[in-house]
């Protein structure tokens, strides 16, 4: 099989990620513009894991990140877009990844404090959860994003951590998983966000690791792939959403490693580079990142280790 192969086509994937920034004439590039700052984070992290952090220009990366910052301290998807917690965490993560957090203090007058205040203000004082932006949609994804960014900025003390923990606990379900809000169905991506947030807040003792690990390992299908909920199709992005919380609770060996590795590798395009959600589908930077991050969690040879949180 020329499409998949049994080895990771490292060089092809590096070239694929580098090429993303030069395809500005493609219609597809414009249509996915609302995801750009996230896209940069995914591409950059994948490059770091692949051992090629130099493949994107550091200076240009920093310039782009700051061109996305808004008046209120938050970051938008691209220059001129409204701030949102998901892009703000990407911005902070990128700056940390390339060791440029001090640029925040150098380039803006209120520095990291302003970013942290933007994030802290998104917390609902009553319930402890976080809205995605000033318009109010709530989701444990936003809670995780805010807590992660605040932790990287060393500003966790600005929020009510106890309330956040109580909210996360209220999201625990009867099947051992977690949902987007109290009562909402267990979902692998929401489990990742809840477990990672609890890990950052130092409250992993609240997780019923046995039942959660059981539910997560049940996500592996006979073809080796992982799904997000029972009876749903497998998708390579769940290689991150499922494997990361398993790694955090120390149960990574409860899935079949060899089968999962083979599945991830079967999703790569070895000619043009990049990985897709499923074998033979179109590649994109989102799935490329989550697939490579999953391989790193499984200690695929030659990759840099990634922090599961």
């Amino acid at each position, binding site marked *: 099989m020329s499409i998949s192969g049994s080895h990771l086509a490292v060089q092809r994937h590096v070239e694929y990620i580098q090429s993303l920034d030069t395809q500005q004439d493609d219609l597809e590039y414009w249509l996915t513009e609302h995801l750009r700052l996230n896209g940069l984070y995914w591409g950059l992290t994948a490059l770091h894991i692949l051992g090629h952090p130099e493949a994107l220009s550091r200076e240009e990366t920093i310039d782009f990140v700051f061109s996305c910052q808004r008046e209120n301290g938050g970051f938008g998807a691209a220059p*001129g877009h409204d701030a949102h917690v998901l892009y703000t965490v990407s911005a902070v993560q990128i700056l940390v990844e390339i060791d440029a957090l001090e640029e925040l203090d150098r380039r803006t007058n209120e520095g990291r404090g302003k970013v942290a205040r933007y994030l802290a203000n998104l917390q609902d004082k009553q319930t402890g959860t976080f809205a995605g932006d000033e318009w109010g949609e709530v989701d444990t994804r936003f809670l995780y994003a805010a807590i992660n960014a605040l932790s990287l900025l060393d500003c966790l003390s600005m929020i009510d951590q106890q309330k956040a923990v109580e909210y996360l606990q209220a999201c625990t379900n*009867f099947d051992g998983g977690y949902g*987007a809000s109290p009562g909402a169905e267990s979902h692998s991506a929401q489990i990742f966000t809840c477990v990672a947030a609890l890990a950052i807040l130092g409250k992993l003792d609240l997780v019923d690791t046995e039942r959660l690990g059981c539910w997560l390992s049940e996500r592996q299908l006979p073809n080796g792939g992982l799904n997000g909920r029972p009876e749903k199709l497998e998708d390579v992005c769940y290689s991150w959403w499922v494997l990361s919380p398993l790694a955090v609770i120390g149960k990574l060996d409860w899935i079949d490693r060899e089968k999962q590795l083979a599945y991830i590798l079967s999703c790569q395009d070895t000619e043009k580079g990049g990985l897709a959600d499923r074998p033979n589908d179109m590649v994109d930077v989102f799935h490329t990142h989550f697939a490579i991050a999953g391989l790193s969690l499984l200690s695929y040879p030659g990759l840099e280790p990634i922090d599961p949180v």
Partner: protein
Amino acid sequence: MNLTKINYEADEKWADVVPILQQEGENSLAQIAYTDEYSQATSYLRAVMASNEKSERAMELTEHIINMNPAHYTVWLYRADIIKTLSLNPVKELDKLEAISLNHPKNFQVWGYRQSIMSIIPTLPPKELSFLAKVLAKDAKNYHVWAYRQWLVEYFSLWPTSEGKGSELFFIDSLLTNDVRNNSAWNHRYFVLFGRNVESVMPLDIFTQEINYAMAKIDTAPQNASAWNYLKGILRKQKKGAKEVEHFALQYVSLEDESKIRSSHALDLLAEIWAGEASDKACQALDLLSNKYDPVRANYWQYRKSLIKAAQAA
């Protein structure tokens, strides 16, 4: 909804408004993807929002923009503002939303907006549940729709009666009759029965009722993980162990005759029941799982076995 091209500059009704064009630099990257019609309409929206105009024509303008781009969230918020300020009929607005909700069911704005309109209506509109049934008929696992439905249950207190009956349970049963593997429906069942913030009055035999319900559904598809997870969840909530379903689970398992094993989930539950008093049988069941019935999770089953061995040794 209106599909003809609307030109505000040529419309007398809008002659008094000076459109506010997108500022240089702002969204400049994105402009290429937008049509002239969209750019013009959003320029008028900026002007309307700047003067805080709440009017009939502003309603039409928001509708026009929503139809072109339902992901534009400011326009939804502004529309909700107009409805509240002008005290427009919210039930009529819900009717109007039906088509766009069915066409864009995965768009969060559609459901967030519905919730904000619904929260100015004092009693549940008669058509609401049949409308949701229609949306869920297209995609029974849509996460936004279920989140909205849970909000609706809380807001209008659609909880089951003290006899453990009610419209929600009836609806869930129809979904599960259609697809017994619908995990979202199982989750909603647990939510309406046990998800109330206030400790509710539940009949003592609610556990018996739900255990029986789960068992009946399992019998139609013994290898359905969702129903077994629900059964385990109920047993856990009841806090009386799982011994009472041992005979039930044994219908799908025979340790003597492997050809009679019809459910790995039954083996799993039996291994749990046997772990204390019949640990040899429990280990046998766990070996069957790791070697034959669920080898993908062999390490997990062996971990369970190691716990039993450790307890034996202690």
